[in-house]
């Protein structure tokens, strides 16, 4: 993949995804402001905009956060994951609109710099009801800015996936800060029980889904039984044609694919965003990541030209109908061996493939 920065590689799916997202956001704002003007006739336009953008960004952050665990629990939700980064960037933009309007509304009319005013106008950090909740929102916005600014594949490639993912893990910190921002801010003044119920439901949903997904993943990490350098992954007949079974070998997951009557084992970790290759399928002869369509030759672990990503492969042997995978991987992009009394390995030529190699 080229490391040259380039604009979004639009395709039909991304246009539909973003169209639905922006349409829903516009509808939400119109309904919020319309109902606000109806039921709170004394509220100013600025107040309605501040609250409209703020609640919209907070709701969108919930959606962003539940997509990941939903996809871990059921692959039916994978289409939501496809363009999640655009959802995240839009969340930052709407959150920024909330922050900027609030800064002008409450901090721009004095003789102090609005940002300085934000930090010094309330320093009651030891009081829950009077806590300077604005600072929590500002910190969360700062985290979301860093995430939005580094969301493009250019940064993913240059920072490397582990560093990029570590940076983006801070979205959980941003979420905790924003829960605090809402609880210590608007919910201290607004005593309508529905607001507390809505926030409580949101927190429960996000936490419960992440915990459920985390424990499901932990169960899958249990080591496959291994002996003499090979781990027993599954029976060959358990692997559907052009699909995979996932096992754990030497602490990391291995995807064992079956295609054309042959069995191939590769690292389960896609080089793009560390997506679970074993949950993908063989398309046009290539392992295709279920997240963004990055592809790898199952025999070598190398992406078809002109792409350059490579994943480690594992030697495989079949014994008494069982698939055994060598516990030590081959270097990324190198052809794996397949041995065993049950079958001889045959090769099939596969053509190059296309994929979404884009962008945020």
């Amino acid at each position, binding site marked *: 993949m080229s490391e040259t920065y380039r604009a979004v590689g639009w395709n039909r799916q991304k246009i539909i995804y973003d169209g639905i997202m922006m349409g829903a956001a516009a509808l939400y704002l119109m309904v919020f402001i319309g109902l606000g003007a109806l039921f709170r006739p004394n509220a*100013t336009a*600025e107040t309605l905009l501040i609250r409209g953008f703020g609640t919209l960004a907070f709701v969108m952050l919930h959606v962003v956060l539940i997509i990941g665990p939903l996809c871990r629990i059921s692959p039916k939700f994978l289409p939501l994951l496809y363009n999640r980064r655009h959802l995240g960037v839009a969340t930052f933009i709407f959150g920024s609109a909330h922050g900027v309007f609030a800064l002008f509304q409450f901090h721009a009319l004095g003789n102090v710099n609005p940002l300085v005013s934000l930090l010094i106008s309330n320093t009651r950090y030891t009081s829950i009801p009077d806590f300077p909740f604005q600072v929590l929102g500002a910190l969360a916005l700062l985290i979301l800015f860093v995430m939005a600014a580094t969301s493009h594949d250019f940064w993913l490639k240059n920072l490397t996936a582990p560093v990029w993912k570590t940076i983006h893990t801070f979205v959980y910190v941003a979420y905790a800060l924003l829960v605090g921002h809402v609880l210590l801010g*608007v*919910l201290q003044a607004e005593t309508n029980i529905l607001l507390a119920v809505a926030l*409580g439901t949101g*927190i429960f949903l996000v936490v419960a889904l*992440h*915990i459920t997904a985390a424990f499901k993943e932990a169960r899958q*990490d249990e080591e496959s039984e291994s002996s003499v350098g090979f781990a027993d992954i599954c029976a060959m007949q358990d692997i559907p044609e052009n699909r995979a079974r996932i096992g754990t070998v030497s602490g990391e997951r291995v995807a064992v694919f079956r295609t054309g009557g042959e069995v191939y084992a590769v690292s389960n970790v896609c080089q793009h965003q560390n997506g679970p290759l074993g949950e993908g399928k063989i398309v046009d002869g290539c392992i295709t990541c279920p997240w963004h369509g990055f592809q790898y030759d199952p025999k070598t672990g190398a992406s078809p030209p002109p792409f350059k990503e490579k994943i480690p492969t594992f030697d495989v042997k079949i014994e008494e109908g069982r698939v055994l995978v060598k516990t030590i991987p081959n270097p990324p992009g190198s052809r794996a061996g397949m041995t065993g009394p049950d079958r001889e390995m045959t090769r099939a030529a596969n053509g190059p493939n296309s994929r979404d190699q884009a962008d945020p």
Partner: protein
Amino acid sequence: MIRSIRKRHKVIWIALAFLLPSLFVAALALRHEEPRNDGVPAVASEGAR
């Protein structure tokens, strides 16, 4: 996801599972009525938070 990231994710969310509900309960339990000045028009006090 790689294993170390999965482990970190699990630890973070177990911590948040305790932290967020505790914050939720504390923030709602300790809130107090803001003093109101009925002499001030509602439009001036709206949106203070």
